[in-house]
């Protein structure tokens, strides 16, 4: 049985109440951190743990923390990114809903480590009910003295607030999130300066994902070395995977880094195989932004090795034959799903979510969507396919924030691996007229694995 660190007690009734949470050992890390450790020691443990940002980028958390500027007399902030909006990702909602105190505990311990006395949890507006759960839990924590002035008599003060957003994927980008938290449009800032130097209100700020902050709790409790024992290489610890799409058991799974992808998809412990006895056609392993993989590259790498659920293994082969772990938004598509329609779907999403600040993203995402829509409806031509490849290239890397990349990658990857399906839409327009054409019969037979060089 796989070890769990974050979802250990997620089926215990009333875990969201502080008494039940305490009875399961909750808030031990706060006690240990505030009474027995210095902030520097906590940062050191996080560094040792090898924990990497769980929001998608996978940047080492300890290193991010150590970049935080500490000028005299200037407040520092910790902001939790609970804007979870990457299509295919719902792990943070699950965690906050079931176990809000774990996040709060992580926020207290992390705030102490970073020297922050005011911290915010920025949660997407659609999760309004989750914000209520968090606020109730925060009120409990205040009442029991885990928050507020002079916590545990150590002289450490911390105020923790929840701020709701109002519907904007871009606010998951950390500087857009800070703008939004300041009551502005969610326009990403131009970097540098990075938030570690000038973040919220121009003060040094760390922005971390919900799961990252929750992982600080077991790291402080058991030590960074213990955490680093789980996993493979630079992918340490456990990861929450949001599994969705055409599988038998969609849901949130906590896995030890390194579980084979094949086991994750097909074993009953996790996804339980493809639903309705169908075959897998493709998989997006890390949220909508990452390249889609055709079935023959999902469980094996191009060199024939087992693909594992780690940062490194999922990106093995680069963008030619690999993808990314990203946020862990694992979407599986069966043989009846149309890749062209799905690519249009993603493209529409990025078009809808572009903030509009910089020209390649503002104009390019809409253009790509329109071309894809036309292709999908059987009204495109062969040139459209190459045009899409070129547009993706012109957007990628040339924008203020990574949304441009996120919009370009799925299109480029879908055409790379499923070009035949795009061509099919051009060649047989009458077969794709019906928007649900993919659901009745496989639009194309699942392509056999090519012989790898």
């Amino acid at each position, binding site marked *: 049985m796989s070890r769990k660190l974050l979802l250990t007690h997620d089926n215990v009734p009333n875990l969201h109440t502080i008494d039940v949470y305490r009875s399961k050992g909750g808030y031990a890390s706060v006690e240990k951190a505030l009474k027995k450790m210095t902030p520097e020691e906590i940062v050191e443990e996080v560094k040792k743990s090898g924990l990497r940002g769980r929001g998608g980028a996978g940047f080492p958390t300890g290193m991010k923390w150590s970049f935080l500027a500490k000028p005299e007399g200037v407040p520092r902030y910790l902001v939790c990114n609970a804007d979870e909006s990457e299509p295919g990702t719902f792990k943070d909602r699950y965690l906050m809903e079931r176990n809000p105190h774990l996040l709060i505990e992580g926020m207290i311990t992390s705030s102490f480590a970073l020297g922050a006395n005011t911290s915010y949890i920025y949660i997407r507006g659609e999760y309004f009910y989750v914000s209520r759960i968090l606020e109730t839990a925060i009120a409990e924590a205040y009442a029991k003295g885990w928050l507020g002035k002079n916590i545990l008599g150590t002289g450490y003060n911390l105020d923790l607030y929840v701020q709701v957003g109002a519907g904007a994927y871009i606010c998951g980008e950390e500087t857009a999130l800070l703008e939004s938290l300041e009551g502005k449009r969610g326009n990403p800032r131009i970097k540098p300066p990075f938030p570690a130097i000038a973040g919220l209100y121009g003060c040094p700020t760390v922005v971390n994902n919900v799961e990252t902050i929750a992982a600080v709790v077991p790291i402080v409790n058991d030590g960074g070395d213990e955490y680093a024992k789980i996993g493979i290489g630079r992918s340490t610890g456990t990861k929450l995977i949001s599994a969705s799409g055409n599988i038998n058991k969609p849901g949130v799974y906590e896995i030890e880094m390194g579980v084979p992808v094949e086991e994750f998809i097909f074993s009953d412990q996790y996804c339980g195989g493809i639903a309705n006895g169908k075959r897998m056609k493709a998989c997006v392993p890390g949220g909508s932004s990452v390249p889609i993989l055709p079935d023959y590259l999902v469980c094996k790498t191009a060199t024939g090795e087992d693909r594992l659920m780690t940062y490194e293994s999922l990106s093995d082969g680069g963008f030619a034959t690999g993808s990314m772990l990203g946020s862990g938004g694992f979407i599986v598509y069966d043989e009846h799903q149309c890749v062209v329609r799905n690519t249009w779907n993603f493209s529409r999403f990025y078009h809808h979510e572009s903030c509009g600040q910089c020209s*390649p993203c*503002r104009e390019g995402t809409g253009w790509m969507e329109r071309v894809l829509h036309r292709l999908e409806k059987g009204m495109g031509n062969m040139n459209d396919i190459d045009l899409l490849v070129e547009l993706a290239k012109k957007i990628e890397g040339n924008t203020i924030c990574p949304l441009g990349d996120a919009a370009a990658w799925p299109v480029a990857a879908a055409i790379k691996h499923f070009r035949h399906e795009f061509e099919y839409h051009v060649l047989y327009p009458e077969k794709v007229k019906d928007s649900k054409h993919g659901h009745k019969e496989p639009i194309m037979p699942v392509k056999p694995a090519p012989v790898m060089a």
Partner: protein
Amino acid sequence: MSLLKVTIDNHTIEVPAGTTILQAARLIGKEVAPPAMCYYTKLATSGGYCRTCLVKVSKGSEKDPRPMPKLVASCRTTVMDGMEVQNFTSPEVIEARKGVVEFLLINHPLDCPVCDQAGECHLQDLSYENGRSYSRYEFERRTFDKIDIGDKIKLHMTRCILCYRCVKVADQLTPGRGHGVINRGDVSEISTYIEHAVDNEFSGNMIDVCPVGALTDRTFRFKSRVWFLKPMDAHRDCDKCSGKAVVWKYGNDIYRVTGRKDQWGEVDEWICNTCRYDKKDAKDWTVEGPRKIEKTSVISQNHYEAGTKFVASPETLPVKQLS
């Protein structure tokens, strides 16, 4: 203060710390300076949006010589000692810039023949240098209704490239901003949202900073093509601004007044609305002399500048002058 050495397209220059790549390139000269549609030296926090000034940093610095992984906006990236930058010498930069220009143009109406900005439009220059001769965009273009924001400024949003300069003028030069960017993505627009006159002493500078024909002077609209006018440096005693402006004359009549722009198209000093809109009588101004206009500019076709050799022939004469 020690100077930092930076090399741009094989030209090396030493600049103080804090200088951006774009500023350094401008110090070297036109042959290396990237185009800029949104950056404006006198407007704090401007730049970074349009992406036309992207350059390649092939060497980060003497200390850390690694190249930067992506192209960077030269207007918002500061120079490091020993940095090496490629602008026109990098095919990658040229390609990316072509892409940006194409994106800027897909929804632009290309109505230059009826646009007051023609002849002094930065987008026109940019697309002349980096654009295609045809559009690959086959969908309906985004359009907006023209609106008046006050009795002096016309907002023609369809032409706007969302450079944010006018928003920053309103933020930094006027007491309370009345317009901004509403909506998001490709339906973003410069707007007052509710009917609202943008009206204060310095609001007219929004027209001068607009790189395209989105904000135009209602007291000048459709009066004349700019290349039929003679721009003259002139000044007057003004209690609100420096009074240093350019008067655009046709014969003895002043058709319009603008700020004085440097070779990068940026005004030297902001002027007030009184100077801009209300002083259209030649008696109001002391004319200093003709303004130097670059030979490549369409405005120079009026060949008024002393010493310019120009032999008129029937082909090169303006076909029809507006009366």
